[in-house]
């Protein structure tokens, strides 16, 4: 309990003194996560739309599997990426293990199914509206996907933000592939895990509050940006 209060104080201290170590860690967290979200969105959003507009044999099953993959256990993803990038693995020669790139790869694997799945659900409702029109206009697949993604862009933001949330809070996978190396691959979540292991609960809590504040700020920012857009474009 007391630790929570101390954690709050700690969080304020960290933020207001602009602790350089904290800034470095926050910077890396953001860099890794934003990159991962962008890559995962580039794959996941069109994939979600594609699954909506195409009818194929095992469509339902594919969607069920996609939904299931939202639950990919991070540790397993971490292990898998580790094995791929390890020196004795197939991509070992690139020396990517214990680098931010490895962390991005792991996060992309974790959040792509999440983004695709939420985007699928969003787009499905829009497609129910647009179906007849877009078929009637003899649109190509790609034209359908772009129309749906564009007109559904504000709702798709939720998918991206969900991916962001998942990625920025994730620890299991990036611990394994990043190694939590000081000044190199240490991010907020791995620092929190480290401090927890040392029993420094107040400090860990402080970092946790910083992380939550970060996530809230980003969400408010995106929401207000997308609202501005609504007023002007519409």
């Amino acid at each position, binding site marked *: 309990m007391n630790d929570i209060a101390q954690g709050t104080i700690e969080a304020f201290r960290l933020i207001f003194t602009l602790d350089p170590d904290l800034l470095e860690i926050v910077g890396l967290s953001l860099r890794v996560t934003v990159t991962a979200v962008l890559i995962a969105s580039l794959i996941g959003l069109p994939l979600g739309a594609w699954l909506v507009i195409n009818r194929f044999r095992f469509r339902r099953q594919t969607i069920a599997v996609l939904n299931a993959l939202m639950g990919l256990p991070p540790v397993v993803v971490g292990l898998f990426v580790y094995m791929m990038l390890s020196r004795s693995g197939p991509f070992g020669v690139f020396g990517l293990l214990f680098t931010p790139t490895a962390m991005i790869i792991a996060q992309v694997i974790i959040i792509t199914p999440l983004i695709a799945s939420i985007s699928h659900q969003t787009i499905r409702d*829009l497609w129910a*509206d*647009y179906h*007849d*029109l877009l*078929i*009637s*206009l*003899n*649109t190509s697949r790609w*034209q359908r996907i772009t*129309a749906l993604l564009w*007109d559904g862009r504000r709702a798709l933001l939720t998918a991206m933000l969900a991916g962001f949330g998942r990625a920025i809070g994730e620890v299991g996978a990036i611990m394994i592939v990043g190694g939590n190396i000081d000044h190199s691959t240490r991010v907020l979540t791995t620092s929190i895990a480290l401090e927890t292991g040392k029993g420094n609960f107040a400090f860990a809590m402080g970092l946790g509050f910083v992380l939550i504040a970060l996530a809230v700020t980003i969400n408010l920012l995106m929401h207000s940006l997308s609202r501005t857009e609504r007023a002007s*474009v*519409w």
Partner: protein
Amino acid sequence: MLPLTLDGAIARVRGKTLVGPVDLQIGATGLTIVMGPNGSGKTTLLRLMHGLQRVSAGRVDWAVPDGVARGRQAYVFQSPIMMRRKVVDNIAYPLALHGVPRRQARSTAAEWAARFGLGDALERPAPYLSGGEKQKLALARALIRQPEILFLDEPCANLDGRAIREIETILQQARADGTRIVMATHDMGQARRLATDVVFMYGGKVHETAPAPAFFKQPATAEARAFINGDIVE
């Protein structure tokens, strides 16, 4: 691409036959009005011809390959489908699909909007239009493609008297320019004004087809007679 030939065409949904079997030919010229009580299958018949409703049995054939025919048709839905965009972008969308540059597409769209009395509404989001304005938008969007065949499903249901007259003029003009029109309507006056021939639907089947003058003067079947008089059709 005409004639369009329906040969034992059946529309079935989850085991239930909605329309058919239908044997019907839509010749190269004329303006066909589809009439019939509510739920008799007018909409389904139009969708079947346009390719929106899967043909469960029998055939629906154009004089050209299907792929070619698909690009030369337009359809106005019974309840207009508004894309979540501005009015002008809705009307310009079919042009955009054909790669017309944005600026040019928008200016052409603006002209069409003006012809349909939407000149003031260009920059408004289409979903907020009034019922009649939506129907006008849908008509403009369909005609802007200058289709060879145009399917209209009760396009004037929510229009005021003046708008109906104006749109009938535009349709007559389009017909004179070579557009084949197939239109469902409940408006007996409109049917009399426009039809060259009538398809009378009843209970999911084509009950009677006849040239318009003959149909309105002396329908061949008791059901059509009752329908024209607004009597109970049983």
